[in-house]
């Protein structure tokens, strides 16, 4: 077991000729909640997909718990993608069965208990569920594992503020505290209070990796305020609406 859950050196990824990540050096330890922050197109999802092995790096090295990406690292990672990955014929319980079969750290009873608290009927077919309920099922699958590394790609994007609090509370009350959580988002104000560290990505480059306490102490302002400062100078098309 390595102290560094994530270790990347010179990590780059290009889609055709367009670079998505350029020379990223990053290390993340254990027991941390890390915000992967940046505007749309800054490389957040690309970094998470590289960690999951869904895409391959163009250059550089990448390790999870000291291991190269493969079946061993996939067993350590609990991944919440930015899309639905269900087969339409399945019920939530089918997915729970699947996770129990493949992940030793999946807690079936906890998944059922989370369904009850989230108001999800696990015997319903996925295709009959609303978009919000499907998102809850996916969140249950991810958080019912006692994983070493949780990779949550935009878990609060596209939901109303009340639902954001609900999702964050679910994450915070269910994650394995011996592991780490990497949350990608551009909605910083909503998650700032739960973060230990912040990683800023800008046009595929890592521009800041600091503890939230240090940012507040050194900069004398919130992570959200610093984010707005760093990305304010960017052309309009590259920014979220709230930055101006």
């Amino acid at each position, binding site marked *: 077991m390595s102290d560094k859950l994530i270790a990347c050196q010179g990590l780059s990824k290009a889609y055709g000729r367009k670079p998505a990540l350029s020379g990223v050096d990053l290390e993340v330890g254990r027991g941390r909640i890390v915000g992967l922050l940046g505007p749309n197109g800054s490389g957040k999802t690309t970094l998470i997909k590289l960690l999951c092995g869904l895409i391959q790096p163009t250059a550089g090295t990448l390790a999870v718990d000291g291991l190269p990406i493969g079946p061993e690292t996939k067993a350590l990672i609990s991944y919440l993608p930015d899309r639905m990955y*269900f087969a339409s014929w399945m019920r939530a319980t*089918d997915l729970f069965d699947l996770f129990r079969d493949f992940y030793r750290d999946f807690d079936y009873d906890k998944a059922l208990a989370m369904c009850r608290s989230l108001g999800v009927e696990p015997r319903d077919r996925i295709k009959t569920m609303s978009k919000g309920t499907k998102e809850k099922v996916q969140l249950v699958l991810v958080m019912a594992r006692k994983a070493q590394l949780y990779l949550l790609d935009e878990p609060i994007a596209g939901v109303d503020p009340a639902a954001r609090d609900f999702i964050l509370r679910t994450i915070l009350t269910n994650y394995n505290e011996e592991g780490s959580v990497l949350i990608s988002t551009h909605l910083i104000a909503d998650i700032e209070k739960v973060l230990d560290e912040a990683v800023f990505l800008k046009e595929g480059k890592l521009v800041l990796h600091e503890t939230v306490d240090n940012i507040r102490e050194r900069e004398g302002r919130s992570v959200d305020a610093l984010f707005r400062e760093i990305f304010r100078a960017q052309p309009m098309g590259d920014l979220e609406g709230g930055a101006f």
Partner: protein
Amino acid sequence: MLWKLLKYDFRSMWKTFSLVWAACLVLALVNRFTLPFEEKTNVTIGPGDGILAFITALVFFGVLFAMFVAVMIFVIQRFYKGLLGNEGYLMNTLPVPTWQLVLSKLVCAVFVSIASMVITFLACLLLVPIQWGKVFSMAFFMELWEGLFGQPDALLYLFEMCVMVALGLALLTLMVYLAMAIGQLFSHRIVMSVVAFIGLDILATLYLDLTNELELVEMISNLGQHAGLWMANAMILLPAAVMFLATSWLLKTRLNLE
């Protein structure tokens, strides 16, 4: 882990095909009573019976056709959607080696193809009111029966032919898989998959021509017919193994779920 993957792939297959297979067998049985077979000629046929027979026969052959189209769609879709589409975000993050993901899809695809052939055969048996007693008393079948039991290795021949059919289906399926694995490397995935399939088909034709020219099967057949059949099986297995390894390698090292 392979067994677990197979469990979910077979469950998905059963959800898709259980109704189609059942419909095929039920419609065959319905047609048995609506189609005017020879033995019914002395039975009075009403004016509406012809139309009914036509409709039920049409539905039956429609279901048969739909079943084989569904098999093709299933084979392509389970790989494309399951590994290269949104479901790939689940399957490719499972802690299993990539070759097991491919093998599970392959086994399921070959099984569903063979099962659909068997269902078609059973449906034909249900459709035609065969009097088995008469069939086996026919000279041809008597000779066939005696021939089968006269040759102690007849069952071995049958087994070798079954292996050949399964390997042929596996080769065709793997050509489709490899084409899709190549296609996903490009931004125009579907177009490039079709182009890759055409390229692989040309390569397969060249391979067949080469093996014909070398007359390997004929050479081995001189040692015995079983040896010839196993040589033919090995010659199908070789490109199938290459395509399996190439597909697994591409998905392991060049997976591109953008």
